[in-house]
């Protein structure tokens, strides 16, 4: 299968950029864009040819035979869906970085390195390999923020890196423990998932690995890196962070924590504060994340913080979907990964690229003086569409995904489903508040002094169109993704989960 080339071509592109003669920014952009397009085309081809949704091996080469570690790539419906998402976001992110002037080649090299590693995580079947790619992601992420970032970039970058390392450490402990307990023969996902770990072992390994990945997925209360990191990052990096890197965490929760240790979700046999299992705990944390993220977003003055906290809120939906443990909720969670990837990418593009780089402020109060809906109407329209999707208006991707998650939640946690309703309403409120302040302020407050803003450029328009089209396509015809997601969830890999807790 060609899909493995998504990884290689991204790394090759990064290498080519570093080796190119310095000083030719235009060529660097073109190379980066072509690389990303090639990756997207490969992802699309793989997605379209994949019929069953089952796990299919892509490449399998022995790597460290003494430990049973292999270079083993495989893809099922869930990974291909996320690979496709990565391809879309990668292309859009480059289009929105068209104006990066500082060390352009290195910027795009790091960018492609990040993308390649993300593809790697989604395609890894061997858990050691997965972990390697997962670690590689952290490095370019750090540099992208620390060098090209804005507000408190060193702080944001360091916080992000530290949180990621802590999470990775927890994951690593869990994986090594699993490797040892299972008899140290293989690190392949299927083998480990098939091994019947003792229940008491799963009971502590599950939360360890789940939280380890959950940190990157913005699990409340370990989410605080997310808003600061997003705010500090340059536009393309925030798009990648929110669009795909946070999905790595969610993907790890589903693919590793939940398949390896399904019994960890079982009841403890006793109740603490009305919570009877890790499943209850994480579901409650997820809902707190949804409501808390939305409420904090409601009171931010910095436009990018609004979107940063909205990401926390939306990632809460994914985690809640995972904890419903029923088919509709889990499929909804995967769909929400895609949907949030697209919409968060779009919103960060509007805020970071279209607005901030023209007005050089993200303060909503100052922005209201720019009368942006007259100055850059295109940005206003795009933000309205992204906002509609984000608040879950039907017709866009957010609605279907959140709806499926809420259906699943109704089944598993009726009371929490009602709380989610509150979160959705607050979600509507913060989007409209930000939109009104940033784009549709009253004309009395308009400053007359500022210079006319530059028009929206063609790459920006293209990038926005791509993401909007993707969101509408998923919103109107989710079947397109569900056709591979659902069979993937029914595959043998998730059997432990289905046997134990599936409702």
């Amino acid at each position, binding site marked *: 299968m060609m899909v493995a080339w998504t990884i290689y071509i991204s790394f090759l592109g990064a290498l080519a950029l570093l080796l190119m003669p310095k000083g030719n920014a235009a060529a660097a952009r073109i190379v980066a864009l072509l690389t990303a397009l090639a990756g997207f085309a490969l992802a699309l081809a793989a997605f379209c040819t994949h019929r069953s949704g089952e796990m299919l091996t892509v490449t399998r080469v022995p790597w460290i035979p003494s430990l049973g570690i292999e270079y083993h790539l495989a893809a099922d419906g869930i990974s291909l869906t996320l690979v496709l998402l990565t391809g879309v976001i990668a292309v859009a992110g480059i289009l929105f970085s068209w104006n990066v002037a500082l060390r352009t080649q290195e910027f795009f090299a790091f960018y492609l390195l990040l993308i390649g590693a993300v593809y790697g995580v989604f395609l890894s079947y061997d858990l050691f390999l997965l972990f390697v790619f997962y670690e590689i992601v952290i490095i370019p992420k750090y540099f992208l923020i620390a060098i090209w970032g804005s507000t408190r970039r060193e702080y944001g970058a360091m916080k992000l890196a530290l949180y990621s390392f802590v999470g990775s450490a927890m994951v690593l402990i869990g994986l090594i423990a699993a490797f040892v307990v299972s008899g140290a023969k293989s690190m392949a996902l299927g083998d480990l998932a098939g091994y019947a770990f003792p229940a008491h072992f799963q009971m502590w390994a599950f939360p360890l690995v789940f939280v380890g990945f959950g940190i990157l997925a913005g699990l409340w209360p370990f989410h605080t890196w997310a808003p600061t990191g997003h705010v500090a990052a340059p536009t393309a990096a925030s798009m990648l962070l929110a669009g795909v890197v946070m999905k790595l965490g969610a993907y790890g929760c589903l693919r590793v924590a939940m398949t390896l240790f399904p019994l960890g979700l079982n009841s403890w046999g006793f109740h603490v504060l009305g919570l009877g299992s890790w499943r209850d705990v994480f579901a409650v944390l997820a809902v707190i994340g949804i409501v808390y993220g939305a409420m904090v977003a409601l009171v931010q003055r910095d436009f990018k913080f609004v979107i940063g906290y909205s990401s926390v809120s939306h990632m809460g939906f994914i985690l809640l979907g995972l904890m419903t443990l029923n088919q509709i909720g889990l499929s909804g969670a995967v769909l929400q990964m895609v949907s949030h990837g697209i919409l968060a990418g779009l919103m960060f593009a509007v805020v970071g690229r279209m607005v901030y780089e023209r007005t050089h402020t993200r303060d909503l109060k100052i922005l209201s003086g720019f009368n942006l809906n007259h100055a850059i109407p295109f940005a206003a329209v795009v933000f309205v569409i992204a906002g509609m999707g984000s608040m879950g208006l039907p017709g866009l991707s957010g609605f279907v995904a959140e709806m499926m998650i809420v259906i699943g939640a109704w089944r598993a946690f009726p009371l929490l489903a009602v709380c989610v309703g509150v979160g959705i309403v607050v979600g*509507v409120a913060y989007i409209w508040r930000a939109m009104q302040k940033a784009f549709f302020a009253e004309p009395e407050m308009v400053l007359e002094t500022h210079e006319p803003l530059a028009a929206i450029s063609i790459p920006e328009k293209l990038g926005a169109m791509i993401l909007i089209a993707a969101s509408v396509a998923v919103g109107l015809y989710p079947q397109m993704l569900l056709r591979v997601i659902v069979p993937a969830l029914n595959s043998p890999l998730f059997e432990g989960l289905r046997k134990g807790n599936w409702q």
Partner: protein
Amino acid sequence: MNGCPCISVLTAIPVIGAVVVLLARNRNRRMTRWLALGFSLLSLAMTLLIWHYFNSASGAMQFQEQHAWVAMLGAEYRVGIDGLGLLMLLLSAIVVPIAMAASWQIEDRVPLYFSLVLLLQACLFGTFTALNFFHWFIFWELGLIPAFFLIKIWGGPKRTAAATQFLVYTMVGSVAMLLSFLALFLAVHTFDFATLAQLAQGGQLMPAVVAKLSTHRLIPHHLAMWIFAGVFLGFAVKVPILPFHTWLPIAYSEAPTGTTILLTGAMSKMGLYGILRILLPIFGEQMQRVSTPLLWMAVATIVLSGYSALAQKDMKRIFAYSSINHLGYCLLAIFAVVKFTGNDAGLLTQKYAAMNGAMLQMFNHGLTAAAVFWFIALLEKRSGGLQGRNDFGGLRKVVPVMAGLMGIALFSSLGLPGLNGFVGEFLIFKGVFPLAGWAAALSVLGLLVTAVFILGVIQRVFTGQLNPRWAAMPDLTTAERMALAPVIALMFAVGLYPQMLLAMVNSTAMQIVQQVRLAF
């Protein structure tokens, strides 16, 4: 007409229109307006064509189209109309051109304005024809967006507050409704209105829901009530029913008048339509349990909004409250029909009358309110935006034609026999008196107050001392007269020959009443 996806085409016309109007980016504002009006007239023609081929004798869904969509979510593309659907399509198709005509004087961002109006029309068509919740909800929610921006960008001084309040109220209602429907879906795996109604009438729906959500410590009967309450809230905000109406006066008065026409003429009917199409068939049992409080709410809606209108000075606010009041009669009829489920043949006729009346009243209120607000827009245009009841005076002398025609619209709103406003209210009271005498008797107060405030408007604006400021006010132009003539003619036509609409809705009304009877 067989095999033609008439309804999809009908919904597509305004969407295409919206795109064309927006992309044409015509510098020439007149061209833009005519283009938009052209599209709305095209959809009116299409609606009339559908009416022509519609079989009024049947209460069944017609012009159905059905396509698979998202099987896992029970989503289907399923559309169709019965008499009620057709009536609402007709009303939307008539109201939108009126709204455009009343927005003719808007000069700011003309293409965007008309494009949003067309988009709103598409959402109206979609809402009135969709037969699957998933599909229906898309249009129900999307309709908010153009309405929000129409208020927000072109509204009066308090437009931001008005638009936000409108949006947030409606959203809260919608989210509550969505949650309830997701619970239903979880239990029975379908979003199809007809299937849900069948299950509900067979008494299987709520037990299934209760069985699914039984992990929870709610009494089954209460759980069913909560689910009903969520859906009810969604519609109650939209109609609105007291006490969920507080977004309405400010929204109607701050919106540009052309938009107010859309809001009151067509969008408010979305709520009533939802009550008839969704609430009544699916939650008939729950509605019956609380029918007395519901009737009280209807009475309060009628009487209190009437008195509120009396206290207003701003004409747009007066007629905003008057809208609540008029829709209250529809609620009164619907809830009265729900209350009595016996098999008494005598009462059955009364229920048919009340239900027919409610539907006619929906149409008539839309038409009349649109006309009244159109006249207010014409007054605004001549006075530079004034809309106070006391800003004018004695206009009869300078603008006799306008005074006469607006008088007709106002008298229709008041319910004068011979005009369209009368027939609906007459049928409603005829039906409700035997069903729920006390409610009907109290509601008569609303009728009285309506007469008082409408006569008050006529008196202060058109009669009395001529306000010297308006001595040179121009009367209606020929173009305006020609545009108004069909509307006024339609008012008389419906008033004198209501049969033309009654024939359309009668079998549907009877069917809805019988469904309610079956519920218990």
